[in-house]
Structure formats: structure tokens, C-alpha cells
């Protein structure tokens, strides 16, 4: 591994990103612009998350990378091997062992602890973009807490469908102040954001924004008093480990439409079954 700095980015860039992260931590939920760099993976594949991880990772870190809850899917595998090649840092599939976790679209089922950092990959950071295409305008809306329109959207859902239609990337209010998109995690995971002891960081590479939820910060999913926020439920437990109260993936098993439900979080599932899944770095 010659010619590259530790974790690919040069130290100046890391410093710049860390400054943005500090600002983000100081203002929970607020989107901080940063000088997003060209990374050796395409936009839409986690460049923001990778830059956040790269600016934080040190030789003593233990890195876990997941995609949709699994350690062994394409995106997770390629990002993990990128970091192994550029840092030589130890990697793990076990949530409990990791100090730094980069995730696409899920929060691990195993509760996080103080000292851990969870980095989310974010496609669109702006929760009001559906309403207002102008960046200058959405910034003003955040500045004056002009969030009525977001509730209008929920109102419309309830009017048309009897309930809120959004099931992932469900908007939240951070620290009672900023409206935030938690990235396309299922709404099932939203409650895990609230007062989490770990540091939660969000990186959007294409949109060049970083935001953060510091440990033990209140994160409330938007709802109405008479239509409170609800998470998904399944009628059956995981077919492999029997876990209930976790997020399950639906898997089609035959051509007749037979289906089974298994844990989305592969590490959690394996742990329950008492086995270790092998990861090839």
C-alpha cells in the first residue's frame, strides 16, 4: 500500500472534515457544509460516509461495515476492503467489538455503548427538499423553524391513507430544534436514535453535508398526538434465530411465492445462533 496516506485522505482534508464534524456535533441535526472530495467510489455508494470514517479512523480502531444490516453484501464488502487496504485496521462483524461502524440503511440491533461511533451514508440530507428545491430557501426555513410544511405532508398522508406513508428516512426533530433526515433507515430504527449513548454521524458526499446527533440527544419522530408514530411489526419471528422485535427481511424462497422472514442484522442473528460468520477482508 504505497503512495496513499493513512485512510486515503491527506491530513489537511481530514482536519477540515473533523472541523465540520465538530460543528455538527455542536449543533445537533444541523447540516454543516464540507469540502467533499473525489473518492474511489461513485456518488450514491457512500462517499460521504467513507469520508467521515476516513477522517476519524485511527490505527487502534476496530471497524465494522454493514449494508442493509449485513456484513457480507457488496457495498459493505468493498468499503471494508478499501479501509483495510488504506489503514490495515482490524475489522469485525461483531457490533459489540467495533469502535467505528459505517452503515448503509440500518442501525444494528445490538444496543450501542458510549465510545462507539456510528456513521450513516446519506443520499439526500435536506428533509424539505421535496417541498423547496432552493438551498437558500431551505436554509432560511431551518433558521426560522419554518417546519409547518413537513407536518402538512404527514397530514396529507393521514387524509389519503389513514396513516403516514413514509416508512424509511422518516423525518425527526433533533434536540427539539432541527428537522433532520436520518438517512434511509427503516422507521423501525428511529427509536434507536433517541438518546443513544453512541455518537451518530451522517455524511452526504454528493450533497457535501455532514450532520450529527451527539450522545444522549433527544430525537423525536414527527407525528400527531392522535396519530402517534408507530414502528413496523411482523407476525412471525426470524426463521433462523427466532428473534422477535427485530427488523426482518422478507425472502422469497420458491417460484410459488413462498416466503420466509429472517433477521436483517446478520451479526445479531449469528450471535443468537451461537455462531460466528466468517468475514474475508
Amino acid at each position, binding site marked *: 500500500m504505497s503512495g496513499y496516506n493513512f485512510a486515503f485522505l491527506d491530513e489537511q482534508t481530514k482536519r477540515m472534515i473533523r472541523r465540520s464534524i465538530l460543528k455538527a456535533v455542536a449543533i445537533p441535526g444541523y447540516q454543516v457544509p464540507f469540502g467533499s472530495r473525489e473518492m474511489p467510489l461513485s456518488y450514491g455508494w457512500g462517499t460521504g460516509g467513507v469520508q467521515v470514517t476516513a477522517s476519524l479512523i485511527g490505527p487502534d480502531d476496530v471497524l465494522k461495515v454493514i449494508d442493509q444490516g449485513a456484513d457480507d453484501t457488496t457495498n459493505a464488502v468493498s468499503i471494508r476492503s478499501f479501509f483495510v487496504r488504506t489503514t490495515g485496521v482490524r475489522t469485525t462483524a461483531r457490533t459489540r467489538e467495533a469502535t467505528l461502524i459505517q452503515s448503509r440503511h440500518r442501525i444494528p440491533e445490538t444496543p450501542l455503548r458510549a465510545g462507539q461511533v456510528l456513521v450513516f451514508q446519506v443520499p439526500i440530507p435536506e428533509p424539505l427538499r421535496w417541498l423547496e428545491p432552493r438551498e437558500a430557501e431551505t436554509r432560511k426555513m431551518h433558521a*426560522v423553524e419554518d*417546519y409547518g410544511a413537513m*407536518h402538512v405532508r404527514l397530514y396529507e398522508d393521514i*387524509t*389519503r391513507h389513514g396513516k403516514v406513508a413514509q416508512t424509511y428516512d422518516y423525518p425527526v426533530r433533533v434536540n427539539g430544534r432541527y428537522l433532520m433526515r436520518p438517512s434511509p433507515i427503516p422507521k423501525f430504527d428511529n427509536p434507536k436514535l433517541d438518546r443513544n449513548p453512541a455518537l451518530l454521524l451522517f455524511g452526504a458526499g454528493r450533497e457535501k453535508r455532514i450532520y450529527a446527533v451527539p450522545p444522549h440527544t433527544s430525537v423525536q419522530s414527527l407525528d*400527531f*398526538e392522535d396519530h402517534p408514530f408507530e414502528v413496523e411489526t411482523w407476525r412471525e419471528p426470524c426463521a433462523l434465530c427466532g428473534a422477535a422485535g427485530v427488523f426482518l427481511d422478507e425472502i422469497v424462497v420458491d417460484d410459488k411465492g413462498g416466503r420466509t422472514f429472517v433477521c436483517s442484522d446478520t451479526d445479531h442473528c449469528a450471535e443468537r445462533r451461537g455462531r460466528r460468520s466468517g468475514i474475508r477482508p
Partner: protein
Amino acid sequence: MTDESPLLSVRGLTKRYGAHLGCLDVGFDLWSGEVLGVVGESGSGKTTVLNCLAGSVEPSGGTALYQQRDGRRVDVLRMAEAARRRMLRADWGIVHQNPRDGLRMSVSAGANVGEPLMALGQRHYGRIRGAALRWLETVEIPVDRVDDLPSTFSGGMQQRLQIARNLVAQPRLVLMDEPTGGLDVSVQARLLDLLRSLVADLGLAAIVVTHDLGVVRLLAHRLLVMRRGEIVEAGLTDQVLDDPHHEYTQLLVASVIHP
């Protein structure tokens, strides 16, 4: 007669567009429960005055002291943008000439009326919807249209919806720009009736900018006549229209075609 201080005091309001004068040295007071009409032809500066107050145009000079609910007076022309937007949301309403400028065309009528309540922090779907239904009734929109999109409404109905959206949060001051412009005569009449009774029932203060003397005759207690950016005459509406003193006012009044 109790003499409370005015809700809004404007002094020296001036707007220059380079060499062209938008408005010059405009001043007036507005009390609660009063409707002030501002009339003039195109280019008179009446819309400029409204835009300066609404914040869509930056004035070249002048003050506009507004008495907030807590009694403190603030110059709205010098407010920080964030504070001004908050005040506009909570205290003022703006009824645009084209209702599409004042509505969200892509969400239902009920959502349009409910939004100001949601923006002020109300979080009970049932109560918000109830308030929206009551307001639709007040502005004479059939309540079974609560879930319809405004794009399916006639122009007059869209305008009534815009009025409901502006009044639901009980503003203290409403700015109106040609509220009946572009509507059929019979539709205009109906809308004016509605505005008249709402203003009286709610004790609103309003500034109505229009070129239509019939509108101010019906709606406004007092009148400002503007020409080329300046106020040329002011007074009680019926006095200015029935006994015009200024040459231009006389011309304006004489030009109205009586049915």
C-alpha cells in the same frame, strides 16, 4: 374616546429603483379593527408600499413601527429576517392577488388551511382538521371539498381558500393586494361581502391595495390616494370619494363607470 396607540405607524417610507421612484415619503397610521384602502392607478406606488411592508422589497428609507402582542413596538423594516418571518407567520396575513401565490396547489384544501396551525406547533390531526372544516364553512366553500386540491377549484373559491388560510391563525393585520382582481363581477361581490363581515367579526386591521374604488367603498374605513409614488389625499373613505379635494382624486372618482 380612548386613544390607544396605533397598531402600525409608517413614516417616510421611500423606495427608489435607481432614478425611478417607487414610493416617496409615505406615512400613515393603522389602528386595530380598521381597514385602510390604498388606491391609485398602475405606477402609483401602492403595490410598492405593500411589498415594502410584506418584506418582498427592501425600502430605501422609512420606518414602520408595529405594536406586537406583548405591547412592544418594533420597526418591521429593520427586523432581522428570521424574526420578521416569524412575525409574519404568527401575526400578519398576506392575501395575494393571484391565489396561487398564496396557496400550496399540490396539497389539499384542508392541508392548506391547517398548515398555519401546524406551523405554530399544533399537533392534533383531528382538531386541525376540525378547524379547517369550520373555516371552509366560514368562507363558503362546501366542506366536502376539504380533501380536494386547490387546482380543482374555481378562481373565486381559490381566493376564498387563500383568505381562510390567512385568517385561521388569527392574525392581527392582513395585507391584501387586489383581493378581487381577476374575478367575475358576481364573484367579486360575494368575496367582498365575505371580507367585510370577517373584518368586522374578527376586528382585523387590514391594508387593502386596489385600483377599484368600488372595493374600497365597501371594505375600507379610510383611504389613501396615491399618484406617482406619493399620497395626494387621505381621509374617510366616503369623504374622499364623495367630496374629493385633490385634482387627481376628482379625476379618479369621475372616471368610475357607474352601472
